[in-house]
């Protein structure tokens, strides 16, 4: 609907009708004025004509009187004077009537003609100036010569006047009648004219009323439309606004924007100012480039839609309670075309936070389901006894961690001590979990380690800093319970499968019972447990490490059957740590190995054998070896030693650095290296058993760790926990 066009048309019609009616009214007034003037002239003429009717008689009588006077030789001067006045006045009035212009009738012409016939007869009489009488003593008064002529003139004039007075009078009466008729016609015309004037005025008033009415109706409709628009903009859940060519927001926008952006001043606001502070500068600059492209007509709508960088915009804003809140907004842009190209860009903003979060949740649950599946598959490859033993030791470890967390602490040093304790426990749990390929557990422990690392960086520590860790620990414990539950189900499954063939009665085994069975099984095997059980775990870990670090190496394990039960845990922890070191630092990438004319598949060898009274474990890889200078540089970087100390160190002292707590040459923290916990734990656990550890290396050729352990005591419950 083109409202502006309709309005213009209505205005034109109003002005046209108004002008026409004004013209009509003016014409009526002018005509009326002219008519009134004419009527006034007619009335004056009528009066004159009526008065003139008496003159012919008067002239006739005055001539009679003059003749009588002359016949009686009486004084005739007065009579002549009266006649003169009458004739002159009549002549004058009649001329006036004719010259007035308001009467151009044949009747008047006739009257004038008749009067002009009077002139030759009356003129000699009124022009007489001589002495009519001659006085003598004998004869008294007698006519003078000119008196006699004068008398003759008078007599002739008197006769003429008597003869014609009636005709002239009638003629003047006719003139009067005509004049009367004229003024009567004029009056009728004036009446008609006034009537039409009144009618025109009425039409004008009617037209004005009609336009007033339609205008009011249009205004009402416009107001209603405005109200409806306002209601829509108030209610709609999307934010709507128009952008002009200067990228400013128009004066009309929907209420939803207020909720989305927590502001009110949208009218005239620049699009850039709307987003400033809510999105990173790079996103803002891309958004502005995009808006500029929208105004150019080079790219069509579909293409512009497909490259819309604001399709899912993450914005961070104050939540009104002092905190920050993240929302996801979707901006859609549509060009609004006018006759001269793009007129506006319509922008629709939707708050898609809930759907984005839902999608994230879905993805997370999908990932967790996948992780569970992976874990289950992983668990199926792990020996149930090993798994149970891991779960037991992990639970003990977590209890220890819990105890450390609960330990009262005030001073910063106490907090730091706590952190170090937490770190060692977590690291050893992570190592075992990785070795068993239980990555869901390993990742959780890794993120706990991350939290500890973050805390270590903090300048001042308080009890509150540890609270998030407690939550995370709860989560980990719940996860462990889940793993245990799954493990017992798996055990039940494994147990029942062969059992079903042999014992038909016990076809199904409840998980709880299965767990008990597994526990009993484990206890049974505790006495006769051998180090051979470790080999599959270490091989699977080696495979994972090789895959994760894109290295190729072969692990060879010898003599693990000799490992006494009480040393199994320590041997496992140590080999896992050394294996990690080899995979991360030792074994080079295949191309580097080839470049150094080495076999592109690395070799890692672990030998365990009796030696004298005790045992000897040798771990060797044919990797890059350890450079004492690199060790010293890393130790300086980690501020474990000073540069002076480093300078004073011989090779032997430098090599000993790897057993220092907190030492790592790795800059990036990964699942397998970089925390600086590792070889110090190995060394500590070896020392704890009364053993020794040594390292020898040849840079570019090999690294060899040698661990010497004393003769084992009888296995005890603490040793396997």
């Amino acid at each position, binding site marked *: 609907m083109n409202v502006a066009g309709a309005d213009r048309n209505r205005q034109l019609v109003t002005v046209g009708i108004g002008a026409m009616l004004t013209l009509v009214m003016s014409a009526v007034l002018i005509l009326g004025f002219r008519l009134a003037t004419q009527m006034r002239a007619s009335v004056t003429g009528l009066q004159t004509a009526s008065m003139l009717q008496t003159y012919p008689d008067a002239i006739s009588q005055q001539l009679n009187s003059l003749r009588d006077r002359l016949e009686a030789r009486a004084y005739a001067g007065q009579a002549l004077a009266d006649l003169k006045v009458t004739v002159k006045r009549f002549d004058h009035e009649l001329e006036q009537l004719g010259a007035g212009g308001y009467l151009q009738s044949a009747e008047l012409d006739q009257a004038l003609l008749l009067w002009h016939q009077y002139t030759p007869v009356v003129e000699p009489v009124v022009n007489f100036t001589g002495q009519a009488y001659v006085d003598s003593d004998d004869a008294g008064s007698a006519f003078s010569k000119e008196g006699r002529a004068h008398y003759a003139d008078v007599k002739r004039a008197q006769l003429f006047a008597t003869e014609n007075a009636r005709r002239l009078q009638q003629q003047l009466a006719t003139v009067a009648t005509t004049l009367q008729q004229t003024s009567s016609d004029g009056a009728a015309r004036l009446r008609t004219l006034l009537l039409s004037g009144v009618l025109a005025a009425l039409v004008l008033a009617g037209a004005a009323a009609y336009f007033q009415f339609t205008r009011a109706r249009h205004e009402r409709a416009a107001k209603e439309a405005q109200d409806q628009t306002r209601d829509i903009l108030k209610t709609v859940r999307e934010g709507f606004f128009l952008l002009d060519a200067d990228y400013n927001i128009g004066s009309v926008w929907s209420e939803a924007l207020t909720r989305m952006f927590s502001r009110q001043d949208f009218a005239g606001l620049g699009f850039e100012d709307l987003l400033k502070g809510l999105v990173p500068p*790079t*996103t803002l600059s*891309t958004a502005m*480039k*995009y808006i*500029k*492209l929208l105004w150019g007509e*080079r*790219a*069509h709508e*579909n*293409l512009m839609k*497909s*490259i*819309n*960088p604001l*399709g899912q915009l993450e914005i961070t804003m104050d939540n009104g309670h002092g905190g920050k809140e993240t929302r996801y907004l979707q901006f859609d842009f549509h060009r609004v075309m006018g006759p001269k190209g793009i007129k506006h860009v319509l922008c629709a903003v939707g708050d898609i936070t809930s759907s984005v979060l839902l999608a994230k949740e879905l993805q997370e649950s999908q990932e967790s389901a996948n992780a569970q599946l992976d874990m289950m598959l992983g668990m199926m490859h792990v020996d149930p006894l090993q798994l149970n033993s891991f779960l037991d030791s992990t639970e003990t470890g977590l209890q220890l961690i819990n105890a450390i967390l609960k330990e009262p602490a005030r001073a910063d040093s106490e907090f730091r001590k706590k952190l170090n304790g937490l770190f060692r426990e977590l690291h050893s749990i992570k190592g075992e979990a990785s070795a068993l390929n239980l990555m869901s557990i390993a990742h959780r422990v890794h993120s706990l380690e991350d939290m500890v690392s973050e805390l270590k960086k903090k300048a001042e520590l308080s009890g509150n800093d540890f609270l998030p860790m407690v939550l995370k620990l709860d989560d980990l414990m719940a996860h462990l319970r889940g793993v245990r539950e799954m493990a017992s189900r798996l055990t039940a499954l494994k147990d029942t499968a062969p059992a079903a063939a042999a014992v038909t009665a016990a076809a199904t085994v409840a998980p709880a019972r299965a767990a008990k069975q597994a526990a009993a099984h484990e206890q049974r095997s505790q006495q006769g447990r051998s180090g051979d059980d470790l080999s599959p775990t270490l091989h699977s870990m080696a495979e994972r490490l090789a895959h994760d670090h894109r290295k190729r190496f072969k692990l060879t394990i010898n003599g693990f059957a000799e490992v006494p039960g009480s040393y199994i845990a320590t041997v496992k922890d140590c080999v896992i740590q050394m294996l990690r070191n080899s995979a991360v630092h030792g074994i080079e990438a295949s191309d580097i190995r080839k470049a150094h004319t080495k076999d592109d598949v690395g070799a890692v060898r672990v030998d365990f054998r009796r030696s004298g009274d005790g045992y000897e474990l040798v771990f060797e890889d044919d990797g890059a070896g350890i450079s004492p200078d690199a060790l010293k540089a890393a130790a300086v970087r980690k501020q474990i030693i000073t540069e002076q100390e480093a300078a004073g160190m011989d090779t032997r002292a430098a090599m000993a650095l790897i057993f220092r707590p907190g030492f790592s040459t790795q800059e990036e923290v990964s699942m397998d290296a970089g925390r600086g916990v590792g070889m110090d734990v190995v060394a500590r656990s070896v020392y704890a058993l009364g053993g020794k550890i040594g390292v020898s290396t040849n840079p570019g050729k090999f690294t060899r760790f040698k661990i010497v352990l004393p003769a084992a005591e009888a296995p005890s419950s603490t040793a396997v926990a």
Partner: protein
Amino acid sequence: MNAASGKVMNANGKKSFKLMIVDDSNIMRRRIERSNQFEELELVGTAGNGLEAIEMFKKMDPDVVTMDLTMPQMDGIECISKLVVMKPAVRILVISALADKATAVDAMEKGANGFLNKPFTDRQLNEAIADLMR
């Protein structure tokens, strides 16, 4: 901006556009060449990086260019801005594995006329080219 201004007559007397393919992958160049279903689009040259593209452009004066973004020596974005200066009427379709919208917006800002993500189907490519020549 009318690509028709660059029209020439080919041997069959049909109106045609000259096409240049710029991509550092030989496989991708052949893939684009094979997928092209437009009779009026005649391949006049290929280039493996931005510098080669500019040389080829000067020699062959193509009307339509498909442009990879990540290339050695001179990347696609820089190349686009140079081609547009040389021939404002040229129509450029960016074909890139970089899926982020900011890259697309950058390319469009520099003067590209279309954007297609790798991997693509024959249909998608032909639709994108059709849009380009419209």
